[in-house]
């Protein structure tokens, strides 16, 4: 199986046009105009590309090859047996945790850092919560030979040592956010010297950092259409790998990139009348940030500080402060515009799970399949297990295992301590 040479842009096939990013109209400036000083040029071009397929630059194809794409599609036979549904239900999963940084995030970190370098940038900056995205950026930056600065929410910076140390080992500069480096950071620290930080604030700091110097570019971990389009390598490989059309395709949703990357190529076939007619597309989110199940579909800020434009999306409000769950990557207040549109049309069906049931599913999965899932991905695991357990007839479920949990052992430690590690299932 080969690596796709194009990304799939679902906007070309949507039943309705995608509401564009807009300026908040709260001042005389333009956030959209500022993008040229924030994002890599080529990313902007991809954000506004009419084509159904966007060619992947050869350097990026080579780097995909390098990181071990294509990732495997695995059959969860042991899990089927553990659930007692073998012979009737077939469960498959696409394993993005096989990638070097342990999640799908590297799929977009590579092109974005490459694009930043094409702009002559010497440094990329970004925010990170749990560190998956930051680690992917640090890795891509190291490979591409540019510096990386990662604003890591201070609570994670202090608690999630593994990914921080690894980012630093890769040569990235990791800054606890709020920091003294930016106006936004200093303002937050003035109010509260022990401010725990938030993803929204970290974005603001990263963007401010980029805007306050030359040769810098901001790279985005999810939500932007261009970014989630990069993830469609997942779903295109999947189409080549799937032995049968599934009844369900399941992924977790933070900003929406792994769900989009996983499902869009299939949804595209459905939208063009070329297959996947019976498939239901399930988006698993956390009850801590239930944007798709309980949010409103409206224009809202991509970040809490409104340094970026507004997007029409399902949102819990850009000032949403989610409880501190282990699946830090699902704590975003919104979901990518195209995913939101598809959800509003009923093509994507959301379901929210709480942390306890999710980790129970994660342990059952680990003990059947030998892979400890990332807490984020564990939401997809939970949904897949639920669907499989409840299904009556012959059912095929495919889910996206967006990452492994090798660096989330701190979360698992807490969970095992609380459950006494007793046998499950």
């Amino acid at each position, binding site marked *: 199986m080969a690596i796709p040479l194009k990304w799939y842009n679902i906007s070309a096939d949507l039943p309705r*046009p995608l509401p564009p990013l807009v300026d908040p109209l709260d001042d005389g400036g333009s956030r959209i105009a500022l993008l040229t000083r924030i994002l890599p040029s080529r990313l902007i071009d991809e954000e506004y590309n009419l084509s159904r397929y966007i060619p992947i630059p050869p350097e990026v194809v080579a780097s995909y090859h390098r990181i071990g794409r294509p990732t495997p599609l695995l059959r969860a036979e042991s899990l089927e047996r553990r659930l007692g549904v073998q012979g009737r239900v077939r469960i498959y999963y696409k394993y993005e945790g096989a990638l070097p940084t342990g999640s799908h995030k590297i799929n977009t970190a590579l092109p974005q850092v490459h694009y930043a370098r094409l702009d002559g940038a010497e440094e990329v900056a970004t925010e990170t919560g749990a560190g998956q995205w930051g680690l992917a950026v640090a890795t891509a930056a190291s490979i591409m030979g540019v510096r990386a600065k990662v604003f890591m929410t201070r609570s994670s910076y202090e608690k999630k040592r593994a990914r921080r140390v690894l980012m630093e080992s890769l040569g990235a500069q990791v800054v606890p956010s709020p920091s003294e480096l930016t106006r936004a950071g200093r303002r937050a620290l003035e109010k509260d010297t022990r401010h725990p930080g938030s993803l929204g604030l970290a974005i603001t700091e990263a963007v401010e950092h980029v805007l306050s110097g030359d040769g810098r570019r901001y790279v985005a971990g999810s939500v932007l259409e261009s970014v989630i389009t990069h993830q469609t390598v997942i779903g295109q490989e999947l189409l080549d790998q799937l032995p049968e059309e599934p009844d369900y395709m399941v992924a977790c949703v933070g900003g929406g990139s792994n769900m989009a990357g996983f499902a869009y190529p299939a949804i595209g076939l459905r939208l063009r009348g070329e297959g996947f007619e019976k498939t239901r597309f399930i988006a698993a989110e956390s009850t801590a940030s239930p944007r798709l199940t309980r949010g409103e579909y409206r224009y809202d800020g991509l970040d809490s500080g409104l340094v970026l434009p507004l997007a029409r999306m399902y949102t819990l409000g850009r000032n949403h402060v989610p409880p501190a769950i282990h699946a830090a990557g699902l704590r975003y207040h919104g979901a990518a515009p195209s995913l939101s549109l598809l959800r509003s049309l009923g093509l994507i069906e959301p379901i929210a799970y709480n942390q306890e049931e999710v980790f129970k599913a994660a342990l059952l999965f680990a003990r059947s399949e030998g892979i400890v899932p990332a807490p984020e991905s564990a939401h997809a695991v939970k949904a897949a297990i639920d669907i499989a357990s409840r299904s009556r007839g012959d059912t095929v479920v495919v889910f996206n295992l967006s990452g492994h949990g090798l660096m989330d052992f701190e979360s698992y430690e807490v969970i095992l301590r609380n459950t006494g590690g007793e046998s499950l299932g």
Partner: protein
Amino acid sequence: MGLEEPGFSAYIPLAYPSPTRFLEVLEALVPCTDFFEIGLPSQKPKYDGPTIRKAHIGALEALGEAEAGGRLLSFLETAARILRNSSVPYVLMTYYSDHRQRVTSLLEAAGNLGAGCVLFPDLLFDHYDHMQDYIEGSREAGMKPCFFASSRFPHRLLAELSRRDPLFIYMGLQPTTGVELPIGVARNLALARKLVGEAYLLAGFAVKRPQDAQGLVRAGASGVVVGTALLERLEKEGPSEMRELACRLRKAVKEASMA
């Protein structure tokens, strides 16, 4: 009403910089404009960049914000008369959200005032379910429909719009007016041309230089609209410099097909 092809269109917000000066501007541009796109000033010009937003605010202030709606229409009548006399066609551009409750009457009024169509750039994005009503309302008002598309747009819908006998399909090349991001607009336009077939494909948003306008026609545009660049020239240098730019733009557009 048909539109000249290749055609050059000037966008100006109605009553900008003031009702009086607007009419001067209009007359200044007439010799170098194939058709006008007249924007109804809006409180929430969602897809507009700083220059045009400021223009909208200026226009509204000049008209006296409170009752702008009524005055706008009556002022439009004046403008329309001038255009009719000089036999330059025009279309109206305004946000659907601004007129949600009174779209039919707006279309009727526009039809009566000789507009070629009313372009609602947000119609398909935020009010998709009203598309059919809009098409019918336009026809009932004696106009064709016209549509606004963006550079992330469903292909099938573009093709379908072209089959609705539109006056034109407007391709918003950039995400916002007057702001030029590094986007492969020619690539997008060429693809749009394939998708819309013979339909009149109008390209706009942040077109500034004559050679760019020419390039767009070469890439597949039937016509090119310029707004921000003209307004900026007007503000910084004056009406004749603005006209001079319009003439160069128009010339470039016209010469595109000869190259």
